């Protein structure tokens, strides 16, 4: 037990050290990718809470992100910039002068998203399985259409720009860590056990005295809160948002992350958020010309996406339950993994990810 605490402390220190190093020495391109990794980790974790742990097949994540992103953006854009970008339809009166510091705006964005989730969740969570998926998918689209048509609030299809870039590595990784800790503790609490019981068998869970509606709502609202915060961070990182950004493809990007990482595995979501984001960007070399030393291959732009899709298919074919299944990466597991023992006892090693399987 003590060993684990020490290891956690060391890992945290290493992370802080790495972030400080990255903040000072990495170029903006790498920093941006790292920021994206962390933001996708937040989004993946929040979606995994709803889909992976509670077993609610919800596809409304893009809608939640849109609410969070718009609220945060509208609260942080300085009033004079607002006047400039709302050149077609002037912005509604209390919004034009409203301005909050970034952390507060982010929090308000998250809370409002949670409130929206509460409103949606009350009727929608009565549905099960595919029906819930369709209802939440519809919700995401409705949010987008509303934002397109309320020009005096969101500037409609023109979108917002000039959002001050406050997001840096400390913000994104800090929030990601906070999300991880909150959701992990929730999962370990009696509420979390109840959520997992609901996932396994609703009837059995209810007969054990678990209030279904209350627990489902709880999971939905907390997931939405972090989705809103993730959306706010993303908008802030980009500096511009518009309704077209929040189509269902965005939801599927995050769904891809949690399915690849393993539904019901927090560490899986984090690992896969990093793997997907970095792989997607790193594969760009396929689009350019490749110099093998003895020959030059002229790259065809777009090859990257083909290769990326093939890699995804291979992973999903060979790891049916995602990279991590529903297991977590823990210190105990790491120390007992075959690699570690293999190194010390000179046995044949396999990957960490397979630690508990054989």
């Amino acid at each position, binding site marked *: 037990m003590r060993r684990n605490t020490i290891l956690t402390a060391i890992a945290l220190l290493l992370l802080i050290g790495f972030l400080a190093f990255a903040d000072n020495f990495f170029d*903006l*391109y*790498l920093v941006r990718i790292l920021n994206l990794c962390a933001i996708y980790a937040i989004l993946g974790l929040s979606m995994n809470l709803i889909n992976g742990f509670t077993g609610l097949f919800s596809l409304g994540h893009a809608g939640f992100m849109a609410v969070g992103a718009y609220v945060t953006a509208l609260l942080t854009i300085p009033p004079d910039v607002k006047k400039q970008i709302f050149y077609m339809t002037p912005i509604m009166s209390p919004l034009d002068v409203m301005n909050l510091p970034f952390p507060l705006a982010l929090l308000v964005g998250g809370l409002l998203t949670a409130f929206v989730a509460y409103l949606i969740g009350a009727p929608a969570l009565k549905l099960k399985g595919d029906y819930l998926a369709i209802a939440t998918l519809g919700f995401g689209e409705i949010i987008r259409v509303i934002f397109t048509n309320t020009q005096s609030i969101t500037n409609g299809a*023109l979108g917002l720009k000039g959002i001050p870039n406050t997001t840096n590595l400390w913000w994104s990784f800090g929030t990601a860590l906070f999300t991880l800790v909150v959701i992990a503790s929730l999962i370990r609490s009696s509420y979390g056990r109840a959520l997992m019981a609901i996932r396994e068998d609703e009837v059995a869970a209810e007969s054990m005295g678990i209030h279904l509606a209350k627990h489902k709502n709880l999971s939905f609202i907390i997931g939405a809160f972090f989705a809103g915060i993730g959306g706010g961070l993303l908008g802030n990182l980009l*500096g511009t948002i*518009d309704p*077209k950004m929040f189509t269902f493809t965005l939801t599927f990007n995050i769904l891809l992350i949690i399915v690849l990482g393993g539904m019901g595995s927090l560490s899986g979501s984090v690992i896969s958020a990093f793997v997907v984001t970095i792989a997607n960007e790193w594969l760009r070399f396929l689009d*350019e010309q490749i110099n093998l030393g003895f020959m030059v291959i002229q790259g065809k732009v777009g090859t990257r996406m083909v290769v990326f899709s093939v890699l995804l298919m291979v992973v999903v074919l*060979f790891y049916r339950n995602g990279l991590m299944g529903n297991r977590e990466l823990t210190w105990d597991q790491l120390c007992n993994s075959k690699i570690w023992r293999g190194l010390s006892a000179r046995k044949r090693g396999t990957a960490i990810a397979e630690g508990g399987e054989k």
Partner: protein
Amino acid sequence: MKRNLMLFFMAVLVVAVAITGCGEKKDSNVIKIGVFEPITGANAAGGQLEVEGIKLANKLYPEVLGKKVELVIADNKSDKVEAATAAARLVEKEKVTAIIGSWGSSLSMAAGDIVKKGKVPTVGASCTNPLVTKGNEYYFRVCFIDPFQGTVMANYAFNKLNAKKAAIVQEVSNDYAVGLANYFTENFKKLTGDPNCVVAVANYNTGDQDFSAQLTNIKSKNPDVIFAPGNFTESALLISQARKLGITCPIIGGDTWETQEFLDIGKKAVEGVVFSTFFASETPITNESKTFLEEYRKEYKKEPAAVAALGYDAYILILDAIKRAGTTDTVKIREELAKTTNFEGAAGFISLDENGDAVKDAVIKHVKDGKFTYLDTIKP
């Protein structure tokens, strides 16, 4: 099995890292120009047309200041998040001297902050949303902006069609359509002096198929002209449905209509519709247009689209600015770009105003015998 697979992945990784590692050699005799376009995803068709124009320009003018110009193409996947990363890659990793792009204003806006911070002059080819260049001294464009196009069509409706009452059908989820409709309304009101001259405004969303509700309402108002800026598929459907409902008044629109699909879907119904665009291949505007048309037909064996000409213009404009600056210093190139006046491009003479937007002639075209035909040129 899994172990072998793991080993295989490791091997792929190692080889790939090795390949990426040795590809990077710094060459001071090369000037890199980034091309930031959607090559995959929803906007791929438009992005690829622009790239064709840019590649042609690069083939015709491969050198500046005695150095070879190399195009670095970065796909932004028609996705805003990806667009920002792609732009950051061009600025930070590839260290390009200038950037061209992107098709789609929202993608261009995602790159705005990055090129501004990296001080890399960027020339958009066909992004028409005024917000792209507003408040960003490093973003320019070779096309005119939505307000101008809306104004041109309002003038056309009032002066040439003698319209007193107009109806508007706009694709509300499209920044371009909303912008055009807004400026059309503003100017039409000014011209007619009648605040109620726009008798109906109807909205639809991208992907809609049925417009009968909007059109029935418009028909009851009996306008002299319908202004319907929007995506080509929806617009073509809208026009044929309007004709079926017995709406006979002229229907006018914007440059997005100029695609083969518009003609294929609309068939007989789109006969006679009028729209504004950047470029007409049958009447070369400048000497550069002639060169462009000849070479384009030779290279790609088809008629060029307006955006291809604009991509071509963005490239030669940047090259010209580098020549005038006499250096690859990006700040100096930006200064020279801002000074551009009467630059001879393939799609007309370009002068950049204080926002970095091109002030240039608009071309009016109509559909005649199932083909887009040149009608008129309108000065700014």
